[in-house]
Each structure stands twice: as C-alpha cells, then as structure tokens.
C-alpha cells in the first residue's frame, strides 16, 4: 500500500502536550496590592465595628433567643425546635448556628450569656459578607474605591451595626445571597458556577424565606451572565435546580412528617388546624398577617420610629443610589447589567418591606442591598475620573460621617454638650439581662414553673442550676402542648413570670390573657431593674396561698 511518508506519525517526538486552544475565561481581575490592602482594611473595620462592645449592645432580642433555643434543640434534642415546630421559618439558619456552637468548646456557655456565642458567629458572617461585597462591587464596577466605599457604609452604618450584631436569620440569609452574587460575578462560564450561585440562593431561601423577593434581581443577573454562552441551557437549568433543591427538601421534610398540608385541606385562618401543624397553612397565615392582629408593625411606623432614627443618611443615600442605578441601567441597558441587577435586588426587597407586616429587624437585609447600589453608582460616576481624585473623594466620603456627631462613631450626650462614643460602642445594655438571670439562679428554685421571654431561655436551660420548667410566654399562650398540657391555662401552675423589656406590650398585643391575669391579679414583683427606657422584672405568682 502506498504511503506518502511512512514515518510521519511514528517518528515524531512523544509529546504529551495538548494542541494550543485559546479560550477566554474571565474570573475577575485579581486584586493588586492596593486592592488587597483596602480589602483587608475593610474586613478589619467590619470586625471592629461589629465586634466592639458586641456582648453588651444591643439588648438581647427575643428573636435572638428563639434562634438560639432552636439551635439548642438541634444540638441537645436532635429536633428543630424545643416546642412544636410549626414552620414559622425554614430551619437552615439555626442549623448553621447549631453547627457553629457544636464546634466551640464549652458550647453555649463558652462566652458567658448563651446568645453571645451566636453573636460571635454574626461578626464572622459580617466579615465574610464584607469580603463578598467588596469583591462583588469591584468585579461589577471594576473600581476598588467603589468597593471600599460600599463596604465602609456596610461596616459603620448604625443601622447595620445595630441589627447585624444580632443573632438573626436575616443576617445569615444575607451571607448566602452575597455568596451567590459573588459566585455569579466570577463570570467564568462554567455550569458549576451557575449551580453554586443557585445553591447559595436556595440556602438563602431556606434560611429566611423573604429572600424570595430578591429573585428578580438575582435571576436577571444570572440570565445576563449566561445568555451568550454555549452552555446556557445547562447553566440556567442547573441554577434553578440548585435553587429548588433545598426548598424541595424542606417541603419534603414537611411531607414526611405529614405536616405539609393542613388536615382536611382547611386553610381557614379563623380556626387554625388542631390536630397537626402545616407548612402550607403557616405560609398562608403569614401572607395574611396584619398589624392590627398584633403580629407586626407597618413599614411607615418602623421607618419613622426606628430606622430613620438609627441612620437616615444611609437610607436616603441608598434609596437615591438605587434610583440612580436603575435610571442609568435603563438608559444604557447593555453596558450597565450589574446596576440593573442590584437595583432590582433592592427594589424587590423594598417592595417586600412596604407590602408586609414587619418586625424592626426586617430592615437588616436592605442595608447591604443599598450599599451595593451605592458602590456601583459611585463606581459608575467616577469611572472616568483621575484615580487620585477618586481616592481623595472616597476618603472624604468615609471621613465625613465619622467626624459628624450623628451616631456613626460619636454622638452628643443627652445634654448636647459632650461628645461620646456612639451607643453601639459604649452602652452596656445586656448587663441588665445578665443580672436578671443571675438573680433567678440565686433566688428561684430550679424546679419552679417559669414563664419567660425567649432571650434568656437557653441561659436558664444551660446554666447552673438549670430550669427545665422555664417556658416561653409565646408558647405558654399559644402552643397547646405548653398552654393546655403543662400550665393547663391556669395561673395556679405558674410560679414566676420573668418580664423582659416590653414583654408586657407583647403579652397585651398577642392577647395572652391568662398570663396577664396571673401577673395582674396574683403576681408580686420581687426583682426589678430600670435603666433608661429598659425595664426588666421578676414577678412571683402567689399560687400557694390561694
């Protein structure tokens, strides 16, 4: 057989190298030295601003206590909650907290009051969020000063510091959302990248369901990042699949427990299901919550009475930035994809806040979304400016809020004559709760039947002595297992009521009538502390003499 060159194949060197194929694979420009320093500084600022005085301020919130007690239940009882779990929230958040506590020697008691160990996790989560936000803004805006500015406000805003120190599902949800955005911002064209972003968003959903309102922004950013890729079908499908998987497992859990649907498919809000709890019923109930029902507060009330008071500058600047990014991105859609995405994120969450019945801390996720928009808009505005001018402007913008006594770093005292460190870095509010627990341990017999607020629940269960019959007032009022089987809805079966700050308001708002009867008609205040507008007390119920 004729051969043109018999040795052409076999005489060539035994090269193992591949043929050169040029494939563009952007994964974001690596940080230069200055960028690394600024990132480290941002994370350090976050560590200090959130960590300083964290065990003393703010007051331990009931909701912090609820998540800690549910994490306690995961670790100590292998259950999702110490009481009947009625699907008020998806459980991934406190499972993460439980995992964190399990890693720490001494666990709940390792740092004094049990909520403290949760707060340390929140600081670490915040520092991680700073890293993620810095990189998201930098990759999307290609501006390190913009990334620094965004994280600066994220770090020092009193609104951020106040709520992000708390052990809240919202803070964990923000971490997963930012992680998802960070992965998306890699833009490396891989299917697993899209899948990772989707999984992060799915975990955000099973940490706090209100992440659902971020779906339009998230979905848009995903769509634009894959629309021109050859693997877009796989990327999009696996993103959705990864988002849906944790949610599906959550629903499956409910189904396995026969708690997905209410008995007889009865969604009547006037008569909650009596035989078993139901995930879909709870969702239905949450969608129909009203402020008048004592289940929360309206947006306007919280905005004016709490959020604007804490940091009106961030809220105004962030809102303006969101409007700005939206306007710019709609004008130049192709060039400003990330800005439209982050605008949609903030608008989506803002829509949720304005349309729902809220608790004070629901604003926490809005803060990073606003600072994202501030960062991207700043990057866009300064895109063509000289680097030195941008650096100077950034430094001025950061220095301004710190130097003015409006609560970022310093504030006037109540006389208006003396500058003090801002409350969040100075006030020792939680000392009162520590004193309350200390008094209970010293004066109340451990086998007493106590009605308490959730903030001290784990402290009384884990401390020495522990109080196995201390029950949450929410459960004493609404959980049939506690109200009817433990207390028999009878004040004779209560020994003490431990009042947290504003617990009286909650008892009245929630119509916890039989507990109020115990306090008002048969109670005797045996311990009390008042500091500013914080009032704590312990009320002994005189049930033996009747």
């Amino acid at each position, binding site marked *: *057989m004729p051969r*043109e060159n018999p040795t052409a194949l076999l005489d*060539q060197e035994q090269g193992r190298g*591949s043929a050169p194929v040029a494939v563009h694979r952007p994964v974001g420009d690596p940080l230069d030295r200055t960028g690394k320093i600024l990132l480290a500084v941002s994370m350090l600022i976050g560590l200090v601003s959130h960590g300083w005085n964290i065990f003393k301020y703010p007051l331990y919130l009931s909701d912090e206590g609820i998540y800690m007690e549910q994490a306690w239940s995961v670790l100590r009882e292998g259950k999702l909650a110490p009481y009947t779990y009625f699907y008020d929230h998806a459980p991934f958040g406190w499972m993460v907290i439980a995992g964190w506590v399990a890693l720490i020697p001494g666990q709940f008691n390792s740092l004094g009051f049990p909520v403290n160990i949760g707060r340390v996790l929140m600081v670490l989560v915040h520092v991680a969020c700073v890293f993620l936000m810095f990189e998201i803004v930098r990759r999307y805006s290609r501006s390190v000063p913009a990334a620094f500015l965004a994280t600066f406000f994220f770090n020092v805003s009193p609104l951020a510091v106040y709520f992000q120190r708390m052990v809240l599902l919202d803070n964990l949800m923000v971490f997963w959302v930012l992680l998802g955005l960070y992965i998306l911002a890699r833009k490396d064209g*891989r299917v697993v990248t899209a899948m990772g972003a989707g999984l992060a968003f799915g975990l955000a959903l099973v940490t706090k369901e209100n992440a659902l309102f971020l779906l339009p922004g998230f979905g848009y950013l995903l769509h634009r990042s894959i629309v021109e890729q050859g693997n877009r079908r796989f990327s999009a499908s696996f993103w959705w699949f990864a988002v849906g*998987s944790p949610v599906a497992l959550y629903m499956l859990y409910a189904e*396995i427990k026969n708690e997905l649907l209410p008995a007889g498919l009865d969604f009547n809000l006037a008569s909650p299901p009596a035989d078993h709890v139901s995930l879909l019923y709870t969702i239905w109930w949450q969608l129909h919550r009203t402020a008048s029902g004592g289940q929360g507060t309206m947006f306007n009330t919280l905005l004016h009475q709490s959020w604007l008071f804490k940091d009106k500058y961030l809220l105004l600047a962030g809102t303006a930035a969101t409007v700005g990014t939206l306007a710019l991105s709609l004008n130049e859609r192709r060039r400003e994809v990330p800005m439209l995405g982050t605008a949609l994120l903030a608008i989506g969450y803002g829509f949720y806040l304005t349309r729902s019945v809220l608790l004070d801390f629901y604003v926490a996720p809005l803060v990073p979304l606003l600072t994202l928009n501030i960062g991207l808009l700043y990057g866009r505005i300064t895109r063509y400016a000289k680097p030195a001018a941008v650096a100077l402007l950034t430094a001025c913008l950061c220095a301004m809020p710190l130097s003015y006594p409006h609560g970022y770093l310093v504030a006037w005292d109540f006389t208006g004559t003396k500058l003090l460190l801002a409350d969040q870095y100075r006030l020792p509010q939680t000392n009162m709760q520590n004193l309350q627990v200390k008094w209970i341990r010293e004066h109340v017999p451990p086998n007493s039947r106590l009605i308490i607020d959730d903030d001290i629940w784990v402290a009384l269960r884990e401390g020495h002595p522990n109080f196995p019959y201390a029950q949450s007032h929410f459960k004493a009022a609404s959980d049939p297992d506690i109200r009817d089987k433990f207390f028999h809805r009878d004040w004779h079966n209560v020994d003490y009521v431990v009042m947290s700050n504003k617990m009286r308001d909650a008892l009245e708002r929630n119509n916890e009538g039989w507990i109020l009867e115990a306090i008002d008609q048969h109670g005797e205040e045996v311990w009390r502390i008042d500091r500013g507008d914080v009032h704590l007390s312990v009320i002994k119920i005189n049930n033996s003499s009747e």
Partner: protein
Amino acid sequence: MEQIVLAAIALVSVVLTVQAGHTLYLMIYTWDQPEAEAKARVPDERAAPQLSFTAIVPARHEEEVIQQTIARVAHTDYPARLVQIIVVCSADDLGTIERAAATISRLRSAGRTNVELVVFDDQPINKPHGLNAALARSDGDVITIFDAEDEIHPEIFSIVNTVMVTERVHVVQAGVQLMNYESNWYSTFNVLEYFFWFRSRLYYQARAGAIPLGGNTVFFSRELLERIGGWDETCLTEDAEIGLRVCVMGERVRVLYDHRYVTKEETPPTLRHFIKQRTRWSQGFMQTLKKGTWKELPTRKQRLLAWYTLMFPYAQALLGIYLPVAVLTAFVLRVPASIALLSWLPVLLLAAHFVTAVIGLYEFTEAHELRATPRTVVTLAVGWMPYQMVLAYAAMRALKRQLSGVGDWEKTAHVGAHRSAQEEEVTSRAA
C-alpha cells in the same frame, strides 16, 4: 436490627447520591469546562494527506447494510490510495461474504485495488478475533474500525490525519452518535446515552488517562497496535479493554466530538436486541475488571476512575435489586425523618439526571438540525424508570452469565434505521 437497617439505608443513600452526582458531572463535563469543549472540536484547517489508513469493517450477518458501509468508506474525501479497506467475516457467514465480495469486485473493476475481504474459519467467532485477523493483513500507518452499520463522514480520514500529524497522538477516538431518537420508547434514552458519553464523558476519561475506548471510529497507529498485541479475543468489550491497555502504556488518547463529523449509528431494533447488547457491554466491563489491566495504570486517580467505570455494571445490577426494596420500605418501614430525607437524596439526583437528559435532547436535536417535540420529552419522563429497570435487568443478566462462566458473543442486529432513504439511494449508486 432496626438500627442496622437504618444505617444500611443511610449508607446506600449516601453512596447512590455521590455516585449519581459524579455521573451527572461527567455527563456535563465538556459543557462545564469551556476549554474541554474547545479541545474536543475538530480543527478548522486540514493538514495535507500524510498518513495512510487501514479501515477494518468487521461484519457478521450484516447482509442488509454491508454494501452501503463499504461504499461509504471507499468514497471519502481522502486519497483512495491512502485508504485500505478490509472487510472481515467468519467463514460461516455466507450471506455477508457474498454481498461484501460483490461490492469489492465492483470497486476493483473501477480501479480500486486496496479493498479486500478477509475470511477466518478458526475460533472464536467474535469481533476481536476478526480484528486481529484483519490487523495481520493491514499495511496502513493508522488502523481504524468501522462497524457494518456505520455511516461515516467523508472527511473523517482527513480530520484524523490532521489531528495525528499536528498533535502527535497515536490514538484518536472520534465521535459516534446514535441518530434514531424517536424510533421507539427506549431509543431516545439510548441516543442520549451516546450523546453524553462521546460528547462529554469520554473527554473526561481521556484527560484523566483511563478511557474505555469505543468500538468504532477509533484510530490507532499500527505500530502501537502491534506493540500491545492487538485486541483481547476473550473479552466481550475488547474496545474498552484495549483503551485501558493503551493508557497503561502512557499513551494520550485524543477525543474528538464535533457533531458535524460524527459517525452515525442506530439503536438496536428491538428491546430484546437492546438487552442483549447491553448485557454484552456489562459483562465485558466485568471481564475487564476481573482481568485487572486497570491495576497497572500508573496513578491512583487513574486506577480509581478505571475501577469505578468498570464496576458500574455491578452497581447497576445492585440497583435493580435495591429499587424494589427501596419502594417496599418506603411503604412498609417507618424511619426517622432524617433517614427518610437522606433516602430521598438519590431521587433528587435522579431528577437532576432527568433535567440533564431533557437539555441533552434539545442540544442533540439542535446540533443535528432535528426537532425535539414535547412528545419526546413526555416519553423521557414516562420511560425514565422503565429504562433504568431495563438497564438494571441487563446488568443482572450479565452478572448471571459472568458468574456461570458463559462468555459467548450475543450479536446485535442492524437494519439501517439511521439512514435516510435518500442516503441509501446515494450509497447504493456509489456501490
């Protein structure tokens, strides 16, 4: 006892989840890795014809399709003098011999002298024996195999010549694709299996250095083939086995998948034939695993991947046993919520596989200018579990044959379902 059952359920669930996750990743590997996809593509520019080829066409009872196949191989875009064609049959296959001889005679009368028929009359009567018989008569620089039903692309020799010369590789596995995705309920699954295997997984295996090669459109340098002693005549999947031997020698295998140049094939015409084919493949993998060539691979990662690939039929057989048990326990056994949740993870992965298959269907049809209809998607959904059970049955059947020492070759019939009438006419005229 209950604790043991629960632990077993948890363990099996975790193992199945990991396995399904890994398999899923291999299915989408080239889509996930843009570099991999780019490398699997056929080069745009062709090198001048430099290498000579010997195309072996092993045939057994292929009277229906052999003439068209010979004609296709004979009429490629590569210089005819550089393409030797050897049709190889066993002496008892008179029908195929007659048809092949007629076509060869016509080609010779037209001046094409490098086409011949090799007939062997010794045992065993199987494909690897035929290949070795043909190898002894070959004189091309590169040896390749085309099955009798293959519809090869006219540029295939030119492409492989380019790749072998410019990239200095001695083994090239080009793409093979089943085409008749709507012939019957299982053909869609079968087509997609090929699609994911050649389009994605083989690239991963080649890159990892543990690749079970395909049975056709695979190209070896003749020197390499002679050095490793040809094909193993005792193995039912001689292609997979020789792939591992090539890897043991440290040879890099180049995988090419470009939908424009794939070799087109058909799914087995009946479920019975499909099960026979799948049984043969499963048993062949079992034989190759037992033979132990994979143990000679240089790195632990290669050995692990080869072992994992070859032992898959065992897992599939176990799955066939596990699935009914799992369904039964779902109704009978009350397990803690955490265990129940864990046992659902493989189901979640199964859903991911289904999603992947549907996307694969659209990718496949788009690439070949076909159309995926909602009906096909419904077929995928409805036929998913039955198809898994058929695969599990074939694996169990293979296991039974393997354990009882039965190792004969169960032939797969071909009817040319992947060839359009127009193509048949063209190739007939050419013949």
